[in-house]
């Protein structure tokens, strides 16, 4: 797949990707953060899960193409699909 580069000439899309740990996968970061929040007196927190957030600017104006490309990037690099899920959100 090839996109034409250059945001100036073409319309640009922004992809926002949320990467979260799959259910049941241990989240040591979330667990430690939860403990410290509790220690600071923030009560009533039942669960803290930490993930990644990635923003991409794409030189692409066809949403289907963009979604396919971003999905491929997630599968190939951005998410570790053995333990992570990803969610893609496109806006123009």
């Amino acid at each position, binding site marked *: 797949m090839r996109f034409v580069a250059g945001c100036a000439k073409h319309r640009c899309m922004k992809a926002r990707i949320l990467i979260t740990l*799959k259910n*049941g996968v*241990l989240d*040591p970061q979330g667990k430690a953060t939860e403990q410290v929040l509790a220690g600071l007196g923030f009560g009533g927190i039942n669960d803290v899960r930490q993930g990644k957030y990635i923003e991409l600017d794409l030189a692409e104006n066809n949403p289907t193409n963009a979604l396919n490309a971003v999905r491929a990037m997630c599968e190939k690099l951005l998410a*570790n699909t053995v333990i992570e899920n990803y969610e893609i959100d496109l806006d123009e």
Partner: protein
Amino acid sequence: MSEITPEIVGEHGLTPEEYQRVLRIMGREPKMTELGIFSVMWSEHCSYKSSKFWLKKLPTEAPWVICGPGENAGVIDIGEGKACIFKMESHNHPSFIEPYQGAATGVGGILRDIFTMGARPVANMNALRFGAPEHPKTRHLVGGVVAGIGGYGNCIGIPTVGGEVNFDPSYNGNILVNAMTVGIADTDKIFYSAAAGIGNPVVYVGSKTGRDGIHGATMASAEFDDDSEEKRPTVQVGDPFTEKLLLEACLELMATDAIIAIQDMGAAGLTSSSVEMSDKGGVGIEFDLDRVPVREEAMTPYEIMLSESQERMLMVLKPGRENMARKIFEKWELDFAIIGTVTDTNRLVLKSGGEEICNIPVPPLVAEAPEYERPWVATPPPRVLAIDDALADINIAPTDALARLVASPDLCSRRWVWEQYDHMVMADTLRRPGADAAIVRVHGTDRALAITTDCTPRYCVADPVQGGRQAVAEAWRNLTASGAKPLAITDNMNFGNPERPEIMGQFAGCIEGMTDACLALDFPVVSGNVSLYNETNGTGILPTPAIGGVGLIEDVNNDTTSAGFTAEGEAILLIGNTSGHLGRSMLLRVFSDNYRDAGAPPPVDLEAERRNGDFVRDLIVGDRVSACHDVSDGGLLVAAAEMALLGSIGAEISLPTTGIPAFAWLFGEDQSRYITTTSAPEEVLTAANSAGVPAIMIGTTGGPQLTVGDGNSISLLELRNAHESWFPEYMADV
């Protein structure tokens, strides 16, 4: 109504015959949780069913051995009331699936094996084998594994002081990640796993139990698949921070007299830890699974027993010490739960929701675990390569050959790897990675441990017996070259599918060779690990019996020496006999079209090995040499180049006057050899002569370059660039 169908038995990895044995032991059909327990206890990983027959042959005794194989780790006496506790373990398959977490949890697991015995871990090592550098997966795997090992070890604050890295296409689909930990304990404060004391509390500490690592195949069975949920990953995630807390909390409790027995939860978690504790103690254990701290909702007893969640321990405490122990674990913000008691029934009894869901007699579960003497065929003896044939198609100047060799994936500097490991934390690393053995001071004393890992799989595949000998001998040699007295080894036997007779033949051959070497060198095996089925599409990995060796330096102020040249104008001596053996050499791997990875590996003469090594150690301890390095992969010129680079001092190396062709002499991989430097060569040569040890002067140190023969030279700068660039360039932009 039969719950257990032949399919379920198959998914649990049990053969029909093995299942018949289960039925006989139980006297009835097992319940699902019981079947799960048999399945993991009788797996290759836990039962060593294919390898036990052979492992029994390894020598395990010496006057300094306190505890040989069978416990969590081996224990040796290092004097002054201290013991060294160490072991190596593989995490091959998980690291291939998810390199970062697989390698990280491998480090976590081996650390627990060490501190569960009462030792504070003081050093980590790692022996890594990857596929061909050009294989599309290799870079990603190298990057992930190294980051994972560093991620865990750096965080917990145990220095990673050395290891080895090999590349070979046979590992394309099965990388090897073997991690070793060395710890130090007081000899009168070593903890074992045998449960004792009827009625004593059994306590669970550490992280909560989740559904980590429950075997994929069993998860697929309809009963246990929570249909709404995504297919659960079988990869565990490590939490080095929690492990650090667990380490400190355990050591704090161990300083009291509260613990009767302790066992980490490794593979097969609660199952193997409880079975081992009760079997070793000749007692029964009863658990109320409702009291096990869990991380996820609605976990079944089956899942709780089979979970491989990390950073957990099981202990038997003296009665009345529970509250004191609880306080320690709560201070370190860890879970602490009394989940059961020691009983006199010899049975593992599990209750959940008030119901008994498991009741297995422990002695037959352990004693009647299957053991196979699988058929094997010896590897046919390889043809010895004639030197002239081997060298026929090599036509290049020695220093050009050297520059390419030290820049090859197998011989280049591993700096890219070890700089990602904190190798200095704890402030006792006297010799950092980059030379032979690492040297780690016994904290607060003038003693030190020398530590190394070694194996040359390309030798093992050609001749498993010689390869097995060589792996042990090289470890011994590396320790010796640092001035240490080699004491004992741990091993990690990585092989292909044991159901193939050729693979079992490799296994048998390596064991035979290792046994010979251990006996000849007084270098017993005190712990180890076996990893089989490292095979993809019928191609197995090179047989890889990785050896982790530990030696003792009694006085760090006097008994060790540099691995690099230390002064200009000193004589360079070669200790040991050189015949110019080229079979399986790095020279041929890099330069030969016809004989790459061909021929017989260099044989190891164990008597000469012992004689040469003992002589060299005496030289070092007697302060009669200024530097010492063993000669291994790549031969004499590569070893000399390494010494020059380490010391930033060049050298002139002369060519042989004997009948050996120059390239065979410079790059042959004859065993049992060392390079040393001295300002009084005559003295050393005379001493060698009277000890019956071959020794000759091969050159002089000095200058900014390495010169071979008359005038063929390369500057140290160029040599260093060649040596240092391959790894960072290969790993750029991963």
